[in-house]
């Protein structure tokens, strides 16, 4: 399994055609206390750059862009009762949705962890 990062602070774990998407620890720190996550329904078709998910914090509502195209297979139902999981474990139990990828080539432009850490350090 490989984890990639976007400049918009999403992460995507890829295992063959299956992927899991969340926001990074840096992103949750910027957003502050998360009060609600509007998750996509299974079966939703998404294109790379679409915003199928919205994270609501006390401060603002923020789009989460899909790092790749595909079809949503599952959303993280635990977030309905515990949206704060995105704050406490953004890169683990606070994942947002899973999807099957339609074009793995779209991952080419994404960053690996070292590149993302360097990107964040420069912000």
């Amino acid at each position: 399994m490989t984890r990639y990062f976007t400049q918009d602070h999403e992460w995507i774990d890829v295992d063959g055609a299956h992927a899991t998407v969340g926001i990074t620890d840096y992103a949750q720190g910027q957003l502050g206390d998360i009060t609600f996550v509007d998750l996509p329904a299974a079966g939703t078709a998404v294109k790379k750059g679409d915003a199928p998910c919205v994270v609501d914090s006390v401060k603002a509502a923020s789009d989460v862009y899909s790092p790749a195209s595909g079809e949503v297979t599952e959303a993280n139902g635990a977030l309905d009762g515990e949206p704060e999981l995105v704050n406490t474990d953004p890169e683990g139990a606070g994942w947002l949705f899973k999807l099957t990828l339609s074009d793995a080539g779209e991952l080419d432009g994404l960053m690996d962890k070292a590149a993302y850490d360097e990107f964040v350090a420069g912000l």
Partner: protein
Amino acid sequence: MSEAEDNEEIEVLTLPLDQWHRARGGRMVEFAGYWMPVQYNVEGGGILAEHEWTRTSAGLFDVSHMGQLFISGEGVEAALEAVLPIDLGTLKPFGPRYSMLLDEHGGILDDLMVTRWNSGFYLVVNGATKWDDMGHLREHLPDEVTMTYMEDNALLALQGPQAAAALERVTTGEWPLSALKFMKGGQFKIAGVEVWISRSGYTGEDGFEIALPAESAEAIADAICAQPEVQPIGLGARDSLRLEAGLPLYGHDLSPEHSPVDADLLFAVNKRRRTEGGFLGADRVLRELAEGTPQKRVGLALEGRQAAREGAEVYSGDQKVGVLTSGGFSPTLGHPIAMAYVDMAHAAPGTALEIDVRGKRLAARVVPMPFVPHRYYR
């Protein structure tokens, strides 16, 4: 992901406590032309924690961006009554009173506090509007009346159920601090420095606003924050606290489009002025008092946890009946709340409405404000 926040590259000014906030982990953002802390990135910080701290203990807010003005001179009372819908005949010394600057069409230019001091009137206006306010006042006040911008003053607010206990410990004066009831003020000393304290604020809690010389801001903030009940609180929690208290925010819930009548802030138009008029914008205010307005500002309680924010449209069935001017998650209540201007036919408490958020309809109902009861010391 992206945040719906953009800081334009304009010259942003610093306030007297800038370094003080940064040293305490303040995450600084541009607000009203100044760098200000939106929250503190420390243990016990963050908007929710700071909100909760203020509701249960005492929070120190830096509101030095606000404009402090002193207006005095020959004929100052009549001159002020010509620009404010206030009755100065009923304004006793040293107690602040809420009022509004209205334009000639009765639209709200700002909301503010007016206090009678011995030799004139002390006004506190919003930071983002203070330059325009000064221009407006200067234009409408006669030459004999002097307006001084007290730019060497800072302003702090200490708010919460433990605010009085904490502040009393660091304050000396002719009277004990407990002599001040809600909306009363007086001169005191903190850390050896003369300050002006009023028992007032913007959170719905008991608390105080403290005007002080900017050069002593760090010493005074340190003295107050050294009390175990006190933590510094950022703008984020200030906004969620005032929203729960049902208090409008200028530039959002109030604007020149609205008057004190449709904003449902008639208490800012003192009784005598409602019949006599004689203030800038009185034509509209008196006409609306007689005829009513098509809409008014109401509170909305939302079902579920998804918040709706400023600009979201309010519906009754297919009919658009209003627009949100503020909205967010209420940490105290555990559900989202909002303020909106809605058509009179849908403004009664209990009315079921829907709010459109990105094409999704959220269920809401009209509720009385404040959303969270005020706990003033009367």
